[in-house]
């Protein structure tokens, strides 16, 4: 087993089932951690988060649905695949509403388990990639001064330098300097790229994200950019 193989957490109060699933996932190349008590998993949430969790719905003390709610509350968005030994429709519906990526009805086949884990792994990688891009963007935006953030937002709105200057009460020459620094600090090669970056900041306004167990906070400059964009949009609507 390679140390960098994807890690899957298996949570089922039935120890033999946990062990058997763990064995199969090991055979197909995953690293596995098993938990017969969901509380133990919650206690380890920040320690090397898995790429996905496989959770039994019916468990004493904390059931799979409650576990998923607690995970989400703690900021974990690890994809979850549920297992169930019952066809209890309301439970199944609730599981899907809670955001289960897949639901496996026991007894399930090894193929269906592997397919569900592969889907969850893909989803997790996609989310992880998007999150890494966002954190990279935040790191660049963090370098902007408040005035540069303002200029970035106004330029991304399509305003000419002279209009930006009048908005922020400075000279066009100063705006040019700010604009140059913005493009340099954000490593934006064109106006189109700057617009895409600003749009992303506006689309994803969560205050923090967790990446590889480490919390990254949205920088103040990002809030300034979205505030300026909102103000500009409001003014445009009034003028229209």
């Amino acid at each position: 087993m390679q140390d960098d193989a994807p890690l899957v957490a298996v949570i089922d109060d039935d120890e033999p089932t946990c062990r058997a699933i763990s064995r199969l996932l090991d055979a197909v190349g995953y690293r596995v951690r098993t938990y017969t008590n969901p509380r133990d998993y919650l206690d380890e949430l920040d320690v090397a988060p898995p790429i996905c969790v496989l959770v039994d719905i019916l468990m004493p003390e904390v059931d799979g649905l409650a576990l998923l709610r607690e995970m989400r509350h703690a900021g974990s968005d690890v994809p979850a695949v549920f297992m169930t030994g019952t066809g209890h429709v309301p439970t199944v519906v609730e599981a899907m509403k809670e955001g289960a990526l897949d639901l496996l009805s026991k007894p399930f086949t090894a193929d269906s388990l592997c397919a569900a884990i592969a889907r969850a792994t893909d989803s997790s990688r996609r989310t992880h990639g998007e999150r890494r891009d966002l954190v990279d963007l935040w790191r660049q935006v963090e370098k902007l001064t408040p005035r540069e953030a303002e200029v970035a937002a106004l330029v991304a709105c399509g305003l000419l330098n002279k209009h930006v200057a009048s908005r922020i009460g400075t000279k066009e020459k100063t705006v040019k300097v700010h604009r140059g620094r913005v493009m340099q600090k954000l490593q934006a090669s064109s106006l189109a790229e700057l617009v895409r970056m600003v749009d992303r900041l506006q689309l994803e306004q969560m205050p923090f994200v967790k990446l590889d167990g480490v919390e990254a906070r949205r920088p103040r400059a990002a809030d300034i950019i979205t505030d300026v964009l909102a103000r500009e949009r409001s003014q445009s609507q009034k003028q229209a």
Partner: protein
Amino acid sequence: MSAPSSHLGATKTENPPLQVPWSERERATRLALAGELVAAVTHDLRQPLTAIEMNLSAALLFLSEAEPRTDRAIEALEDIFAQQRRMSEALQALDDLVVCREPRHERCDLTALAREAIALIRTDPSLRDAPIELTVGAQPAPSVSGDATLIRQALLNVLLHAIDASGGRPGEPIRGAITNFEDSVEAVVTYPKPVEQPASSTGPGLTLARAVIAAHGATIKIDESSESTVRVETRWPTYAG
């Protein structure tokens, strides 16, 4: 040692003679009610079936690797044997009930079985918050004689009946108590009497429990004389070795 209850004057009492064999008349009832047990047994089969499928697939993969991991494959195959035994036990319990056969008489811990029955109820999200309180006597209860799977099922059915029957009085607890007597162990479930409809002492779950209790030479009494509660008393013979 607690004294037996003496306030059961107005009770509905069923005291079948001890060790009554399963008769054909009872068999018809059992067959009609077996569906309920089948549901429970089906749940017990799903887990080992899943484990067997996973272990078999894993064993095949371990053996088909360029350098076969035979030790891991052997572990998987050994686990399959264990899961096969687990399935056999679940099926045996069903077989014992449906076929005309005396249940097994083994040493069983009634307190542990009561706790397991409560734990099983807690695995159902819709019953997770059912207010059940279990009190166990100061002395550890001696073992009783019988088939653990069937006794647990009977206790489970009594508790489910109590939850169902007391549905009109939410928030009031269902109390379970295990008490020692000289030659028996008493398991009592007391639940709030429904406000609008009289407490029902029938129902498939409770009838199935009665059949299991009778087959073990145990007794069940349902006391509805109190204005506020219903008391279901089961008494199981102590294990004599």
